């Protein structure tokens, strides 16, 4: 070895020989490596495709929601829970007024027609509702 610490000529020749006679990859080895590379690369493409597909499906679902069918469709068409709750409350109120009319209802009716009117739930309602006619 030289005093400079650099490889002497003999060692340089040895290292150069090692570089010259490095093992070279044969066709089989290169095919294996390239096969790995292409398989991994195909995985990238599949992953990218899956992500793009999922993204497109989500966007389409946002833009064009699928129509609901059956009772769910009717429910949705009415406007969902808020609208159905309002309809239900109105229907119950109507039934309640019909079955048990409030006390002030007769007075209110009298003020409208300016006559003494009696409201009663009876099969023969006609004479009581129009007392001035005939009778």
């Amino acid at each position, binding site marked *: *070895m030289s005093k400079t*610490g650099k*490889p*002497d*000529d*003999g*060692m340089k*020749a*040895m*290292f150069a*020989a*090692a*570089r*010259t*006679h*490095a*093992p*070279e*990859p*044969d066709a089989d*080895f*290169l095919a*294996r*490596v*390239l096969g*790995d*590379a*292409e398989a*991994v*690369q195909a995985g*990238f*493409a599949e992953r*990218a495709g899956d992500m793009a597909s999922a993204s497109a499906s989500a966007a389409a679902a946002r833009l064009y929601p699928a129509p609901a069918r059956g009772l769910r469709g009717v429910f949705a068409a009415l406007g969902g829970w808020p609208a159905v709750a309002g309809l239900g409350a109105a229907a119950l109120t109507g039934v309640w007024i019909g079955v048990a009319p409030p006390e002030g209802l007769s007075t209110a009716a009298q003020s409208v027609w300016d006559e003494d009117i009696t409201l009663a739930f009876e099969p023969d309602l006609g004479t009581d509702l129009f007392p001035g006619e005939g009778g």
Partner: protein
Amino acid sequence: MPLDAMDDVPDEALLVLFANGERAAARALTLRLSPRVLAHAYRLLGNRAEAEDVAQEALLRLWRVAPEWRQGEAKVTTWLYRVVANLCTDRLRRGWRTRPLEAAGDPAEDRASAAEDMQERARADALQAALQALPERQRQAVVLRHIEELGNPEIAEIMGISVEAVESLTARGKRALSEVLGARKDELGYAE
């Protein structure tokens, strides 16, 4: 992109093309990096079949890491040298031992007929045998410095040690090689 058009493209840029699905980049990187990775693995292990396994595994790791590769942080070859060294160390620690003087590959018969080339081959084999006798870290440092011809800072990065430690390892390793090979200098046809 045609394969020959990639000759001037840096490894790191090719890796980005590879991650983007460019098939020509896969071929270009395979042809460019395989010889270097295989040779390095062989010099650390001294066994062709083992070296092929290590080289294939190291390159497979490179393919997988390609989408996350961060430009400017490390050279592809620096990363590969480190992975190869780690894989070789794992094999050696699992009990596999290097075997000296195994043939370095298929010799080119036309060149082997020349006496000069035969001597070159003998030198390469003798050096490989001497390398196998070195401690693992010395062998790695000497190979990177004197055969791969890398600079000490890059070797330090690959080995995860200081530049001073690299200098120490290469000096001791080279001295040990000189002693072993000096005994065969007449046979190998070189002067100390």
